[in-house]
């Protein structure tokens, strides 16, 4: 009997195209949009040498020190700037046209002319500060110890690096991935629609199909579980397609712990399904209200998990951690995130555990509401 109901439920589900759209086509569509929208986000923070000009007047020609230093920072692989040597009027024109971040002019001191105040202009300022300050330092030292001129020159020419990158077992902090993880989490929760339909189709006073099933001599629990299994299977298939699409077509990095990725997806689907079943059992008749709850819970959840704005997830977890632990979308997102970013798995298992608890609560709730209903007359 289990197989019989399972099979027919499967057939029924495959014919409801909207549900397939929600769990498959919609996320895929969104992931393509994400891919378009966020393609430039990470590269916008990458440092690239920027253009700057120096006014090549008499002062500049005489200032060999400055020339050498500029030479150093504007050549080679890890250079700071692409240098242009131009006249004052040209420099002004370039600045107005926005082709250079700023221009420098030597004199008693090196001066900087900019038109706005971005990070590049600030880098230029720090560089010039450094140059002017070194000069000041040298003067300062020579004032007290004039005999040190020789050794000082040797020290200046040697510029040391005082920082080094710490070794890390984490993957690179690629912020964009979080958008995709929360998208998967959202589609997991779209299992809501499946769960909700299952409950509608088991309560004889709500749908005709349920009435038909209820007259059959099958235990209600058995009928419900077998059709839920069919829903879970379809939803998991949709989710796998989505994951494969992201991994192989959009080339999203999920790390390489495939087993755990499957576990997360499974738990996510289960949470979505049981959540839908629970709400549907609770709200009963109003279809509009069910959909409203589904959409608002998943949208709020996705928003708080960083789907529209990645930093949101961090803000929630640092300002209101409880909100992060009870938000299923965030738990699923965080599970994917930890799988990608961390080597350690404790936090991952905590997320999975929370999802498990949620599914359990929803299942028990649904069970308590649905059990022992008899329909003497409808």
């Amino acid at each position: 009997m289990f197989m019989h109901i399972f099979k027919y439920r499967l057939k029924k589900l495959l014919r409801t195209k909207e549900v397939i759209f929600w769990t498959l086509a919609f996320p895929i569509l969104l992931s393509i949009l994400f891919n378009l929208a966020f393609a430039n986000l990470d590269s916008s923070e990458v440092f690239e040498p920027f253009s700057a000009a120096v006014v090549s007047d008499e002062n500049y020609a005489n200032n060999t020190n400055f020339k050498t230093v500029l030479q150093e920072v504007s050549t080679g692989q890890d250079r700071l700037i692409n240098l242009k040597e131009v006249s004052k009027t040209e420099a002004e024109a370039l600045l107005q046209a926005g082709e250079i971040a700023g221009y420098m002019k030597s004199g008693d001191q090196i001066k900087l002319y900019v038109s706005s105040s971005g990070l590049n202009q600030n880098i230029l300022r720090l560089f010039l500060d450094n140059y002017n300050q070194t000069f000041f330092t040298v003067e300062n030292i020579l004032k007290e110890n004039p005999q040190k001129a020789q050794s000082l020159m040797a020290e200046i020419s040697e510029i040391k690096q005082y920082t080094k990158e710490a070794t890390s077992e984490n993957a690179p902090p690629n912020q964009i991935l979080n958008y995709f993880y929360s998208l998967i989490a959202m589609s997991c929760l779209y299992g809501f629609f499946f769960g909700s339909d299952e409950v509608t189709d088991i309560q004889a006073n709500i749908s005709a199909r349920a009435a038909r099933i209820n007259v059959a001599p099958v235990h209600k629990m058995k009928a419900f579980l077998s059709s839920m299994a069919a829903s879970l299977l379809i939803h998991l298939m949709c989710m796998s397609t989505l994951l494969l699409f992201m991994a192989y077509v959009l080339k999203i990095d999920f790390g390489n712990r495939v087993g755990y990725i499957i576990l997360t997806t499974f738990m996510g689907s289960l949470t979505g399904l049981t959540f839908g079943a629970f709400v549907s059992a609770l709200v009963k008749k109003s279809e509009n209200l069910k959909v409203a709850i589904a959409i608002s819970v998943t949208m709020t959840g996705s928003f708080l998990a960083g789907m529209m704005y990645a930093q949101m997830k961090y803000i929630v977890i640092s300002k209101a951690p409880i909100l992060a632990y009870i938000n299923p979308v965030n738990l699923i997102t965080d599970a994917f995130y930890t799988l990608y970013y961390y080597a350690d798995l404790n936090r991952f298992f905590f997320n999975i555990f929370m999802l498990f608890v949620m599914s359990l609560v929803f299942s028990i709730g649904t069970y308590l509401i649905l059990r022992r209903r008899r329909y003497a007359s409808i």
Partner: protein
Amino acid sequence: MQVFKVSLKILKKNLPSLLIYLIVFLVLSVIFSSVAQKQESEYTDFETVKTSVAFFQDESTPLVEAFKDELGKSAIFVATKDDYDAIMDALYFRSVSYVIRIPEGFTEKIMKGENVQLEKRTVAGSISNTYTDLAINNYFNTARLYISQEPNLSQEELASKVSLSLGHKTDITIEKSTISNDAFGYGKFFFNYLAYSLVSILITGTSIVMIVWKNQDLYRRTEVSPLKRDTINMGKLLALALFTVMTWFILVVTYFFLSGNFSFNIQLALYVANSFVFAFMALWLSFLIGTLLKSRNAISAASNVLSLGPSFISGVFVPQELLGQNVLSIAKFTPTYWYVTANNMIDAMKETNSETIMQIFSNTAVVFGFGVAFLIISYVLGRRRQFT
């Protein structure tokens, strides 16, 4: 009139679901605009271009304290829990872009002129990495110069000498300031976000009404009535327009309460006018969808795709400057792009001259054009459907 009344009744009956949407979107808009505004303001003013740094120190010596003060001029110290996960999370979500730790014994090594390096964690290759590195290296290279010449300096003497040197700033001339007076920055984000909430709420509300009229019995009943089809459609549209105006009004009024600014101001007036036009565009779009689609599920599908999709590629969630050129050229086919562009122009507006206002209006006009096109299409298609 009957059609109008019934449509309103349907809306009233579904008030709970509509209110849920409205409240959810209101709360989201408020959170989104306040957070997004804070994010952007960190990058505007010349004096305050600072990178966010998490600073940990295992020793507290006069030199380290002096160094921290000096670094504070080009960095904002973000308090972060000293815990591996917390630090890595903060780095991933860019709450900090640079993490540095002063180990024990660091001062001693510096004072001896030994070669020593601080461990940092950064977003590899980022601008803030380069910037903060420059600041740190500046400090210790200067310190090194002093120590190499006067090895017997005490920490305090060294610190004061270094800060004297570093106090020596480059003259900067700002030739043309592009910093806008940003007293109103909140508005751009709130009204941009409206593009998402309005479309979402309106499509849902409209569909609830339109679906009821598609019930076969009801449809046949209205068909045999002596009312003209156009009159029937007009009734529906009027009821929905009332709904649109109310939704729009609630959203806009919320903004007034949030900003606490009730005085008239040209920028504000433009935002409001722009969003009003957008609201009607959204209504006509919803009407078109309601005319074309039959099932409730299909409509909520369309609602989500049409609200989220254009918002993502038009710069509602991600600022337009960060979107690729080809993405933006696709976005130009959606009204949301023109609406957002107009909002951005209003935000950047420095003085009120007719030229800028004309530019803003021309964007709004495109939004209106889209709306009228939707209305005409729904009229034409609606007719055709009825004849076949």
